[in-house]
């Protein structure tokens, strides 16, 4: 044991450095304590992106590298503090910060007992079980986040801004008659399709378009199906373009080149389009607004040819 220690240490350090290099895009930025207000700690991107909308709020979040890899640099405020990964937010670090409260999604209940010794913890999510559904649930969630952060006014502003935006978009796109199927490629043979209770589904319902996926979904409103299942669905395919994520580019190219994909009725008639993935699919109102804008933009483009117009 004792003779082997130097070797163990070297290997261990090397390995951990490898993991670190593979996993982290940036080194953690630690907070400065010169602000009046304390931090709000969150373990969920839907909560985080809602908090980002409130001006000058101090936010600490877990897994920020994942969020940024989807939404790009600049999608998070510079004052954001990284507290580790979501299932294990670093308690020693949180304890040494000035924390006002913790907002956690319901799936992390096991964290609540530890964190509630540091600051009050509340569980919130736009995707939890609730009597409200779709947009109403999203609105309710935003109000609750605003209430917890002491920014009720700004939350109401965000909601009314989003409502107005959605009605404008609804008028712009009212001419589009076909059901839409929102698709995200997972691997060469499988896709996610988004139903009514997902973020894309909520937006589609909100701007009075038709969602083609009525099948069963999970709590986040999506379902995983294989590509041959798409043959049974007659819809305008909106493919979430994830080619900006290096990890997904190969998959997307492979599927779109494959024979089976090219034989899909909707693909053969040209009823497909790519949609920029500038939103977090499990997000809240900020992502919903961006998704809605992109969707209306691609559907209004000249080459979007609805089935029924042919």
């Amino acid at each position, binding site marked *: 044991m004792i003779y082997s220690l130097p070797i163990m240490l070297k290997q261990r350090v090397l390995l951990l450095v490898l993991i670190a290099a593979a996993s982290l895009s940036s080194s953690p930025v630690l907070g400065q304590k010169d602000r009046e207000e304390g931090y709000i700690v969150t373990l969920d991107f839907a909560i985080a992106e809602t908090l980002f909308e409130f001006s000058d709020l101090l936010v600490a979040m877990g897994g920020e590298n994942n969020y940024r890899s*989807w939404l790009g640099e600049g999608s998070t405020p510079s004052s954001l503090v990284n507290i580790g990964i979501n299932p294990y937010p670093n308690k020693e670090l949180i304890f040494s910060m000035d924390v006002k409260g913790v907002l956690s999604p319901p799936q992390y209940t096991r964290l609540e007992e530890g964190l509630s010794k540091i600051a009050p913890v509340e569980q919130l999510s736009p995707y939890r079980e609730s009597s409200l559904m779709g947009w109403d649930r999203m609105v309710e969630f935003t109000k609750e986040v605003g209430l917890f952060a002491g920014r009720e006014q700004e939350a109401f502003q965000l909601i009314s801004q989003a409502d107005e935006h959605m009605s404008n978009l609804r008028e712009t796109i009212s001419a589009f008659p076909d059901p839409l199927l929102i698709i995200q490629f997972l691997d060469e043979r499988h896709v996610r399709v988004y139903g009514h209770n997902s973020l894309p589904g909520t937006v589609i319902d909100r701007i009075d378009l038709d969602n083609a996926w009525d099948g069963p979904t999970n709590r986040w409103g999506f379902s995983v*199906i294989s590509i041959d299942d798409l043959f049974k669905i007659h819809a305008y395919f909106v493919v979430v373009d994830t080619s900006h994520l290096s990890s997904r580019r190969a998959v997307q190219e492979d599927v779109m080149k494959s024979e089976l994909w090219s034989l899909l009725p909707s693909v053969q008639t040209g009823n497909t389009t790519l949609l920029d993935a500038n939103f977090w699919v499990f997000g809240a109102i900020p992502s919903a607004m961006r998704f809605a804008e992109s969707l209306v933009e691609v559907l209004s483009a000249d080459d979007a040819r609805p089935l029924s117009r042919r």
Partner: protein
Amino acid sequence: MTGYALRRGSPAMTCWLLSLPLVVLFWLGLQAQGGVALGVKALVSPSLEEVSELLLHYTWWPRLTVALLSGAGLALAGVLMQQVLRNPLAAPTTLGVASGANLALMAATLLAPGLLTLGREWVALAGGGLAVGLVFALAWRRGLAPIVVVLAGLVVNLYLGALSTALLLFNHEALSGLLIWGAGSLAQNGWDGAAILAPRLAIGAMAAWFLLRPMNVLELDDASAKSLGVSLKYLRFAGLALAVFITGSIVSVVGIIGFIGLAAPNIVRLAGARRLGERLVWGTLLGAVLLASTDLLLQHFSGVLPTLIPTGAVTGALGAPLLMWLIPRLRLQGDRAPQPAAALGNRYPAPGHLLIRLAIGLLLAAALGLLLGQGVNGWHWLSPDNWSLMQWRVPRVVAAAASGLMLAVAGTLLQRLSANPMASPEVLGISGGCAIALILGIFLLPAPTSGVLVGIGTLGAFVTLLILVALNRRSGFVPERLLLTGVAVSALFDAVRSVMLAGGDPRGQQVIAWLAGSTYYVDLTSALVVGVLAAALALATQPFTRWLDILPLGAPTARALGIRLNGARLVLLLLVALLTACATLVVGPLSFVGLLAPHMARLLGLSRARHHLLGAALVGMLLMVLADWAGRQVIFPYEIPAGLVASLIGGAYFMWGLRRL
């Protein structure tokens, strides 16, 4: 062929009986898509206008073909592995092909996505090949002796598995596509997969045919085989390389399909196929039948399920009860004297000194874990009276030590009880049962609290123990049978885990985090409770050291020395179950300290039961405390679970030890 086999008895009968459902499902499947005639027409000359014919031609038929080919290939590889390694627990993935392929795909996805455009199969194949190469390199000097190969395979699997889990934990959403591959989905979009597999399997089957006669020699012990003038090293290399080639081809095309390669050979063996030739033929056929029927059954129900259920996961879920049903009905030669497992390492001349050094090491590690850490302002030493930060560290150090202690003791008991080096608390299935219950709790309850989860987990462990006892009471707890039961439960656990993860929703990360074995969730009260329990249970093993010295010598010796086997085995089993359940509730089911610590104590030269137990306990605690500290500090504020780090540290030491043998 048929008549010959039928006269010889039940392996053929078992195969034909089990293939009846396949015929029915095949017919039903075609009937649902327009009838058998259309199905055949679509296979031969599909019309590109008709969607139903397109689907039959491009997805249904290729999928069936790939299922048959993969099932057959995996079972063939399983028979070869079990023959060469002389271990019924050996599976096609024992040598690390699947975990190597998995890690290679994950690393390529995250670090070098350009490689994936060359073809996913090649990346997977390269990863699997490298992993197996490492196993061979570790075991080469010992002439690829089965026990060394198995141990090297186990540790490489662990090591790569731990690395993959770490990557997954930090990049859950980016790797969600790979989770489906990891769960083994047979969905096809064309004939590419079948075209890759068919020729490779044909080559594999032919090579197996040529190896058949020499491989029979491997049933003899080493000395007799050598006296026949066979080069054991090259024979084993040929057998293993063939199995690896077949497995690698399948894994690279369809992903990880568990259980078939383990179960099919065992089922035909249990059904009476004794000779290698019989096992190869019937095992291969049964594998094809099992996988294809499972897949057809699954397609039948896929429309009503809210999430994708990959076939690889379901084979485990359906195969596990089948194996459990078979276990009490069939004879195993479980009471024979086991292989000499003690050949690992030389006995250390002064075990007392070694133990004291380990104890000092443990104290130092605990001090390190409590006092040195990073904070907002970088590294700093904590003064011992700084309770405000200490309150976060004490529970974790205590829990790490306690779980290390419990798993190490449980592993030592089990390895001595069964004389099987692959035995570990995870293999017994207790932690698997506990984990199934917890995963279902996390997924099915809207917002489960810690207390509820602990209750559910305990219940799961208890139910598993009942199943183990019920299935093995009549046979007198023969270790081999016990471990097979455990393997069945573990397969069920893998199935539940794969299905939940392949669904790809955000709860998956929570499950991975818990399975990876972190002390994160322990608070002071539960840490103290667990610490006291661990100490009490570990002390409770002390009266049994005489049994533990004698049991590895085999059942006849033990009986001759006056041990009541059934009673002794049951008592030890209960102790193992208790230890494992407690540890699993604290740090999750996958920490592998229970496997590594007993072997590490052996490698250090502790071979008497009392010293082995103590040494393993100390090594287990030391490993977990060090791992917990390193996991918390190395990439602060990110945390790597202690279970993962322990696998990495322990695995590295273990590989170094194997190389030195």
